[in-house]
């Protein structure tokens, strides 16, 4: 029953601003796709285009086999006829209706019998663990509860596609963690194809089957969380994903499987590339030692930031700054000499000019 979503060459402009720029993507049946990017990157606009709340300026959108939007053919199906549900950032519960009415609104429009309405409300509320809240008004509930009702409202009319626009961003950190787990579980149970918008990379990495990273309306990378994290397609994605941030070291590639960074060399597969390059290494892919070690480079500990489960160490060597993450509370003292060794398997090389990942041709 799950359905595919296909977006072809989609462009949406607001005046001179191109919010979505010729985006192509396919969401597999039953999968969970996250649109990730900084604010203003076009992710919400893209979602709204899929929902039918915005009319794009070019391109096509299919939901399943159904062409729901085509500029060239002048087709744009009403949001209500696209068989999708949408959860808004601020929940958008109707304040003048009780929870029951909020949930049954869509069902009444579909003219379902009364017994069915009651059954659906019961089920939906049970699924979001809000049974017994039928007669509450939205303002009588907390943000987290309202969010659950908004989810229940979508679940109750059983759309084939779930769309969610930063549904957790108005919740506090603790609640967000709980809701992530529940959303993931709900998606698993319902099995509906889901498009999820967020600017929170942790949310994207934890929940998605695939992540689409966007910037300035352009799709940067569409891949699994694993690959987005370990093989960012370009410097933007590398820099955007990961906390603490990835280390980006400017250097010169010599085409001979090594890059000169400052006064030391980093061994890395260059696939024949030479010239200005950037070496990307995640903070956790660096081994740290207080004693000289063959293949390790000497640095000075500039700052040590333990945070319980792990510690972040900022190390300097001349102008070069490197952030390292180690497990546990680090015993390293400030201004101590340390030796860093990059995990060669985990290094990525980028062309400085294009910003793109250098890969085997």
């Amino acid at each position: 029953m799950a359905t595919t979503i296909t977006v072809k060459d989609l462009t949406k402009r607001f005046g001179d601003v191109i919010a979505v720029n010729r985006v192509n993507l396919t969401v597999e049946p039953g999968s969970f796709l996250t649109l990730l990017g900084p604010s203003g990157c076009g992710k919400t606009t893209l979602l709204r285009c899929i929902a039918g709340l915005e009319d794009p300026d070019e391109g096509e959108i299919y939901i399943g086999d159904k062409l729901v939007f085509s500029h060239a053919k002048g087709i744009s199906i009403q949001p209500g006829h696209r068989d999708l549900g949408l959860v808004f950032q601020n929940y958008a519960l109707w304040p003048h209706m009780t929870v029951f009415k909020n949930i049954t609104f869509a069902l009444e429009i579909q003219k379902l019998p009364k017994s069915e309405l009651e059954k659906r409300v019961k089920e939906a509320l049970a699924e979001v663990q809000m049974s017994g809240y039928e007669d509450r008004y939205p303002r009588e509930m907390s943000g987290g509860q309202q969010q659950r009702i908004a989810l229940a409202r979508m679940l109750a009319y059983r759309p084939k596609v779930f769309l969610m626009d930063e549904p957790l961003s108005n919740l506090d950190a603790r609640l967000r963690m709980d809701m992530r787990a529940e959303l993931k579980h709900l998606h698993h149970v319902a099995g509906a194809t889901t498009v999820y918008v967020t600017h929170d990379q942790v949310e994207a990495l934890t929940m998605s089957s695939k992540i689409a990273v966007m910037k300035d309306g352009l799709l940067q990378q569409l891949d699994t969380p694993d690959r987005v994290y370990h093989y960012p397609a370009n410097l933007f994605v590398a820099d955007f994903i990961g906390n603490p941030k990835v280390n980006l070291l400017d250097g010169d590639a010599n085409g001979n499987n090594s890059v000169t960074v400052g006064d030391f060399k980093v061994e890395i597969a260059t696939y024949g590339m030479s010239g200005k390059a950037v070496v990307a290494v995640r903070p956790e892919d660096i081994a740290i030692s207080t004693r000289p070690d063959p293949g390790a480079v000497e640095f000075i500990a500039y700052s040590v930031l333990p945070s319980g489960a792990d510690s972040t160490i900022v190390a300097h060597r001349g102008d070069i700054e490197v952030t390292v993450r180690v497990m546990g509370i680090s015993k390293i003292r400030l201004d101590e000499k340390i030796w860093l060794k990059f995990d060669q398997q985990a290094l990525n090389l980028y062309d400085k000019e294009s910003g793109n990942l250098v890969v085997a041709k």
Partner: protein
Amino acid sequence: MTNAAITPSPLLPRLLATSRRFFRWVASPHVVLSLIMLAVMFYMVIIPLYRMLMTTITFQENDLRYVRDAVAGEFTAFHWLRMLTSQISKIMTYEPLLHSLTISLGATLLSFTIGGAMAWMVVRTDMPGRKIINVLAVVPYIMPSWTIAMAWKVLFNNGTTGGVPGVLMFVTGQAPPDWLSFGPLPIIVSSALHYYTFFFLFVSAALMSIDSSLEEAGELAGASRWRILRKITFPLVIPALLSGFIMTFSKTMGTFGGPNVLGVPVRYYTLSTMIRSNTTISAYGDAFVLAILLILFSMLTIFLNQKIVGTRKSFETIGGRGFMAQKTKLRNWRGFLTTVIVIFQVLIAVLPLVLLVWSTLMLRTGDYSLSNLSLAHWIGKSDVSINSGEPGVLRNPAIYRGAWNSIKLSLYTAFFTAFLGVILGYAIVKGRGTRLAKIVEQLAFIPYVIPGIAFGAVYISMFTKPVGPIPPLYGTFALLVVVSVAKHIPYSSRTGVSAMLQVGRELEEAAAVAGANAWQRFWRIIFPLTSTGFVSGFLLTFITTMRELSLIILLVTPTTAVLASMTMRYIENGNEQQANAVIILLITLVLIGNFIISRFRGGSLKKGLGM
């Protein structure tokens, strides 16, 4: 831009796609409503203005008396030349213009002084009794604007132009001088006592919104209190002051009641009363020239307002919720000032009513002694010796008809206005950023720049002839409703827009996603959520329509007369006591309506008086 990927499709499918897109655009609710609103406003505002202009540059039937070879309907500069350059232009145009400007400027300055000073004291000092002052400040504005003028006459009439001699004359036995009885001074004072509410509300709102830290910063920098007031506080409230200035100025420019009661008897004409006297003799071309002048002046002031305030708007509502940490200490003056202000307010709120009631209780005119009191003017049977044989107010079917007309007019106007407000709000808010919505918004603003009496004049020209399928409405009750609704469009669109902005767009989008069509979305989501705006818009319009005079004075006929216009008719016929009784009735109705409003809206009439 490279469009290589887009292969040019054949013509027919492309046309089909374009037309589909076009029809989808046209069928979207805000576009449909915008187009309907455009048509409505075109009919209610643009065509009348056009007709009015045309009337001034063509010969009218009426002109055949003056110009022998004139052919009705032919182009002519006759009216403009006559009103602007001929011998009578001085009396017909320039003097009234000068008088209008004098009165407006005088009334504006006076109400600024009263309202501004009171606002400062209420907001920025530790004066006790602020609540009472706040409430009382609104009272004069609730009453019809010419109430104080009529009371003034009861107090100061010196009998030079006939009519009932005033209380002062009865008490002192001497006639007050003319400058105190009639003409500019009384008109200015009586208007200012009505309009000072504007300044009071504007300035106190502005003062309250100032972030006190701005002033504290000045204080820390070592500035004196007076210096802070001059250099920091005052510049910050200038936008509010200017808005108050412009509004009072253009309101008084177009006001009719006061000048008609206190100016016309001594031939002190303003533009508004001169327009009226021209229309009564069917000299429409001439009247419309004056109306256009009045509109131009009003537009000029509003243009200046936007020019001056516009550039300063950047720091208009400074800082948001300013919390007043410090208030100027009045020390020994505290109680005294409060007493003075409250006495002043009670005087201008209550004294006029007392005077008016008293005058209606006099049997023999001009004798204010207690022994002369009687209810003859209220419940007396028709008697030729009293009021040219008109029966007492409460026995007079014409008065009941007028009262009923007032209520009916207010109800209809309030309903249609509130309804238009919701629709305009929807069309403008949903279409935000599109050219169509901008046009609708700007058109909706036009009636605002047309003074009441000129707007009435506009409607004479429009509805004496049929327009398309719509029959000539002149002389009908419907015309009064139409003109009142049209004049309220700027306010209703504002309330509509702000009500609609309260409703987040996701609420409607959520309904769209849930499968609701535009109709269902409107009635089940939008309307319930904006209904408080609808109700308060309704109630407010109800009250303002009830005491509206300038707008309809040119359009009423004996059968469509409302209480407001009847006060004028009685005064013009010399039945002042009758007039006073009618205005008391009108005030009673207004107060009842007002009481209902405050029950509905938690006593805050201020909100709606924003403009």
